[in-house]
């Protein structure tokens, strides 16, 4: 079943088309990556899905419903959650409070109920705290719940951001460069973790990633953007051998993008992982 369909999506900033007539679809339960050189329109496309931008043309449907005109909170209610390229946690709130905010719209206590501290509100608070603790454990942050988010180490912050997104119980999780700034060991852990999200929670995952090692290892399908247009789509193997992709990366002079960033090797022959 197709979870998300984007057809002919165009987003312009002034005269510049950041995303141009993009067709794209994601199957339920799959892990899909969007790659492309810097400025190719990957994050713009993400922002169109999550309601941060509204495309000028085309439409995006999620679960059969058009969503391209909805507000961010309405899109979150439908089951899309995201993380950010530059981590955007609620820095002064503790880890567990961050996760609790993610649960906000699924809770129902009213302000009067909160003032009167009704049995219903109390039960809901207990349940939501339990769930938050479970999510902390799931992402490996057990025992760090009361640390303010900005005091967590970098890798923990990335994981907390994912936990916060998971707290909305999304059907589709958008991860914007989840391994940015990580060393190889951390990257490997994150890759395994992303796969476990799909395998254990059944969450469909759309990924923007620069590190080919990550992308080729876990994606079932890969879409390549360049100058706002999709120039290729397919399995890892198909992408690696696609002449337009190689030209976009190597021809444009940004060879480092397709290389494993910190290693500097060109990874086009890496066999796709299972």
């Amino acid at each position, binding site marked *: 079943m197709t979870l998300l369909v984007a057809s002919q999506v165009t987003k312009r900033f002034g005269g510049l088309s950041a995303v141009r007539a993009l067709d794209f679809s994601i199957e339920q339960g799959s892990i899909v990556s969007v790659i492309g050189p810097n400025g190719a329109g990957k994050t713009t496309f993400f922002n169109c899905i999550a309601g941060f931008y509204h495309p000028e043309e085309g439409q995006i449907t999620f679960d059969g419903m058009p969503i391209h005109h909805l507000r961010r*909170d309405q899109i979150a209610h439908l089951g899309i959650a995201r993380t950010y390229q530059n981590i955007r946690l609620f820095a002064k709130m503790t880890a567990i409070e961050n996760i609790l905010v993610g649960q906000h719209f699924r809770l129902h206590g009213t302000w009067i109920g909160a*003032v009167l501290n009704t049995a219903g509100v109390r039960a809901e608070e207990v349940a939501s705290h339990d769930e938050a603790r479970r999510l902390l454990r*799931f992402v490996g942050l057990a025992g760090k719940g009361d640390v303010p988010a900005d*005091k967590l180490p970098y890798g923990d912050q990335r994981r907390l951001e994912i936990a916060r997104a998971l707290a909305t119980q999304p059907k589709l999780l958008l991860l914007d460069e989840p391994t940015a*700034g990580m060393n190889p060991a951390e990257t490997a852990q994150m890759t395994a973790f992303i796969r476990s999200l799909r395998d254990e929670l059944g969450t469909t995952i759309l990924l923007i990633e620069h590190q080919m090692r990550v992308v080729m290892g876990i994606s079932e399908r890969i879409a390549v953007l360049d100058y706002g247009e999709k120039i290729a789509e397919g399995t890892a193997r198909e992408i690696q051998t696609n002449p337009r992709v190689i030209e976009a990366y190597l021809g444009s002079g940004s060879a480092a993008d397709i290389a494993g960033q910190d290693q500097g090797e060109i990874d086009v022959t890496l066999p796709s992982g299972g």
Partner: protein
Amino acid sequence: MTNQAVAPVAPDAPVALAAAVDWRRAVRMGLLFGVVALYVCLVGMVEVFQPRALVTGIITLGQTTMVLVGVGAAYLTIRGQSMDRAGAAAAGALAGAVAGVFPAVLVVIMELVNLRAMFLHASPGTSAVLTLGLGVAGAWIPIVALAIVGAATGLLLTARTDIQRPAAAALVALLLTGLFAGLLRPPLLASPFTAALGRFLFASDGLTVAGAVIAVIAVVGGRIAMRRVNLRSRVAALPPERQRAIRPFSLIALVLLVLWLPHGVGPFFAQVVAVVALYILMGLGLNITLGLAGLLDLGFVAFFAVGAYTVGLLTSTAEYGIALWPFWAAVPFAVLLAMAFGAFFGLPILGIRGDYLAIATLGFGEIIRILAGSDLLKGLLGGPRGIINIPKPIEVPPDHLLAGPIQIYYMGLVFALVVAFVAIRLRDSRLGRAWLAIREDEDVAEALGVNLVQTKLLAYMLGAAFAGLGGAVFAGLLGSIFASSFPLFVSINVAALIIVGGMGSIPGVVVGAIFLIGVPELFREFSEYRYLFYGLALIAMMLFRPEGLLPSKIVQRELHVEENVDPGLGAVAASWEPKGTRR
């Protein structure tokens, strides 16, 4: 080299000590405080305070301000430096003398040139204070006097702690009782039992010598007695269950003190504490809007006015009253109407962010004030003549326990307790978390499914409701309301007391209201000069304690950050391996 250049100014400085003493610093502080001395003279504090005595016949308040300049110069010279006693005295004397040069030169210049066209207080009166009445022939007096003060400060700062502490306490006690003599004397004279005591301790212009001696003895003796009894460590030594048993008693003592306060301090103070209670109430309301949700609302006074006018219209027995309701029946309507106005105003503007919201709300506050005073609504709200004859919440004879502002004080406290309770419950709920999230990053909060309009509007409406409650209390306090009772200054005061107290902190609101609203009232005697210190205190506060006096835990983390987060490749979390990861 510097030492030799400077040494002649302080002839009593032993040259052998030069190595240990930072003479440059002494001169620098002297110059700095010299400018302060000049300023204090020219704005007229020295002259205006001269008729008021700190201790009658010994030292006037005008002289005290100059002494404090010397103390300040010496204190900042010596603080944090390691010097022996003679060195400290010498450095203090130098700093004081350098500072004293400025007023000395001022005396000479005033003799030669008439500065009064520009500086009203560059007058013979100021000159007389500075030279003890000798005129230009006594121009040396400020230099010597401040040098002596500086040396004394140096000696005190390097004294043994068992001398230094009581001496400093005694001086502070002397200063405070002298300053507040004008406030302490009338209540004593009012009662026939204490009138004699009042005359013994206080003269009409300040402390008597006997009063000064007794104040010093009381403080020093009190300190020694406290040391003997050593209450704190005795309590700490008690077993925990006994400590718990003591706690209710200290709580009861605090409650009794709060209840007794308006009775013990006389009618003027009773009015002051009632106003403080009112500001606590409003501060707790704005604390939800500004402290938790981060919405800077500078039109807060609009809702205050709505509450006050609602009560006025519904209860007034004079011209514009429409219902003749009792006060208590009108209060819920005032709250609900203020809340409705909050919704009405909030909906169109809550999409605006940060600074822009502040300006938009400021506009609303002004609109309400101007409308209330306008000819357009004159037939309804009385225009500039306002609404009068609003009944007291509880009608009692004038000598009753609950007369006048006292009942407003109690009412304000009770309402403040209710509002604080509501605020705490809300803060700890899912709404409180959503508000904090919006304050931190509203885009992200929205992307997590928080409905921004609904959530912000609720914060705005609850803040408005509490402001309306404050307005109702205000109408009951004054008995009459005018459009001019609702200036922008009220909104700014409430916002400032939250920031000074600590954003989002409920005890902070109480402390902020006492500090910003109550304390300036105590110095009413010193007319506009108190705002000089008010402004200085605010600046110092924001420089040295930006998170507020009693910050909530979250804000304290916010502003005193140790940078311990590795921005790059963070610590490898070796422990991290999601359970059941499959390959």
